[in-house]
């Protein structure tokens, strides 16, 4: 009797992988629902497309002098939310850590107190307050009113998609790929090897490449489905859409998939047990997730760190993905980034081939 056809077997492995995957509610949650929750959660919090709304706590003076009143009027014109509280209530709010900036009266004028943990918001509020103070002073002295400098919001690529959700979508796509490679591929490989599942397959005539390719194809289709779902959610929920070429976007996703798949297989070659793999993969995953700018930018970090993370594959990858998705850019001038990712991919692939073991 003829041996079963390899393509038929491949299709069957692909189907059984999908069927068993759909039964794993935990995996379904982390791959499909979690990125959506991140998008809607963070996207909603920072929804407004205009300047961020800043709150300035104003400690109510004992008696409102004309100067106080003029200052308050100017503050209200400066896109600040002014919260006037009594000294006790203001102190309570400050102690809870909710206040970024607080305006207090002193014997000879005013003082701004900024929360050292919320420096970004505090400094913006302080700037606006200082401007308002100048306006109020000119009005009181009858001098011509100082001109405000107009502020506009724009993405680095001069595109209209300006809010945080738009920043988040490419980040989540990139993180999905990294998670797929490190966990759905790398960790699963180690666990199959540790539990002897590969050994059970090795005594059957099923060619090993068929099993492996079936698994890879299933993961790739999961990533494609995830990406499509995220793009649809971004469009429906936040009216964010791809500003660049869809072909380029698909190409970048495929490139990232290949790189992170290889990375997962490579790391799997260095761990004997799932526990060891957990440690190794966290060592790779957390620096990349936190430092690569998937969730936030690293502008406040030391320069050496900012340059160092560009050597990790996720940072240049996200920069290119954001360029295409948010700003409609092409890959012109992205040679260095492509090279970094390509080197990671090739290195991982070589290591994966060299270190891969079935038992």
């Amino acid at each position, binding site marked *: 009797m003829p041996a079963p056809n390899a393509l038929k077997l491949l299709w069957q492995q692909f189907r*059984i992988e999908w069927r*068993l995957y759909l039964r794993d509610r935990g995996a379904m949650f982390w791959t499909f629902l979690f990125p959506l929750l991140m998008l809607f959660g963070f996207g909603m919090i920072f929804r407004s497309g205009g300047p961020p709304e800043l709150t300035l706590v104003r400690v109510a003076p004992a008696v409102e002098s004309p100067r106080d009143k003029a200052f308050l009027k100017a503050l209200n014109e400066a896109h600040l939310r002014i919260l006037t509280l009594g000294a006790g209530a203001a102190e309570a709010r400050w102690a809870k850590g909710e206040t970024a900036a607080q305006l207090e009266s002193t014997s000879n004028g005013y003082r701004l107190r900024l929360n050292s943990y919320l420096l970004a918001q505090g400094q913006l509020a302080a700037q606006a307050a200082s401007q308002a103070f100048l306006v109020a002073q000119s009005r009181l002295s009858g001098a011509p009113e100082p001109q405000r400098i107009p502020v506009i919001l724009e993405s680095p690529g001069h595109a209209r998609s300006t809010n945080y959700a738009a920043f988040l979508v490419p980040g989540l796509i990139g993180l999905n790929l990294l998670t797929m490679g490190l966990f759905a591929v790398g960790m699963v490989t180690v666990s199959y090897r540790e539990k002897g599942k590969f050994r059970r397959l090795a*005594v*059957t*005539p099923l060619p090993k490449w068929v099993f492996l390719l079936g698994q890879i194809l299933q993961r790739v289709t999961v990533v494609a489905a995830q990406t499509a779902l995220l793009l649809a959610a971004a469009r429906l929920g936040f009216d964010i859409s791809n500003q660049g070429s869809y072909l380029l976007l698909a190409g970048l996703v495929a490139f990232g998939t290949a790189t992170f798949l290889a990375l997962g297989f490579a790391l799997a070659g260095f761990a004997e047990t799932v526990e060891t793999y957990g440690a190794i993969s966290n060592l790779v995953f957390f620096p990349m997730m936190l430092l690569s700018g998937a969730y936030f930018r690293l502008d406040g970090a030391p320069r050496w760190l900012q340059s160092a993370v560009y050597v990790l594959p996720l940072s240049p990858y996200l920069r290119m993905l954001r360029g295409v998705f948010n700003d409609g850019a092409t890959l012109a001038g992205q040679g260095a980034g492509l090279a970094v990712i390509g080197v990671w991919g090739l290195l991982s692939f070589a290591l994966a081939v060299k270190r891969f073991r079935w038992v």
Partner: protein
Amino acid sequence: MSHQIVVRNLRKRYPKVTAVDGVDLEVEAGEVFGLLGPNGAGKTTTLEMIEGLTPPDEGEIEISGLSWREHAAEIRARIGVQLQATSLYNRITPREALDLFGSYYPRRRGTDELLALVQLEDKADAYHVTLSGGQAQRLALALALVNEPEVVFLDEPTAGLDPQGRRSLWDIVRAMKADGRTVMLTTHYMDEAEALCDRLAILDHGKILRSGTPAELIASLGIPSVVELTFDGPAPGAAEFGARLGAAVEVRGDRWEVPTHDPKTLLPRLLTALETERLDYDQVHIRRPTLEDVFLQLTGRSLRD
């Protein structure tokens, strides 16, 4: 083709230990052959080299006249394997697993028939994680039979099962033999080896100490059987009785023990002597030497150590 499995001078060294140290075996078609030995004796390594899972450092293996070097795919299609720990996907059902594994082979046995054979019809659509140890083990056996194999390899098939589970597995192994399959199994239970195996090889420190049928192995060592005798009342003088019987009688408390290589002749004479002397005995019991005794004598250690 004379033998189903031929193994010559098989060796496997690991950095710290020589696991298999020159094993020769011949297994006939249709027989159940057992590798008996304590943990760490090299049973599993030997079996996994024959199954093609572990490459040997040295030696020749032929299955149905085929060698792994030239006919790996052909051999894999003809053998069925149950590993010591068979791990599957957690959420696969027995029915799906049998269908899936069956599809890997040119020849396959019906899933329903296999489920009936291992009595898993009730659990056919339950997730693998929910199966009990015995059920999982029976599924592993069914998977080993999915391709109508000529040779079935079973590694410790009843490890960790309760007595009832072991019996039901033994029945399945006997059914394999009845279907004309060759079975090679490892065990460290001597009752299992005696109950199932036509022939055995006793393995220790990677070497075969002795092989043969269970009866041959027991006979080969010249260990005597022992006739035990207990009395209702006080035991009479043992020495005189022994002299009249023509056999040495050893007294162990209120019990007599008469060692003999020929219990078939001794027993009638003993009973006649008891009758004629009107001795009021309570029980007569013959204790045959077991494989445990064989193992003890060959290695100086107990099998369960």
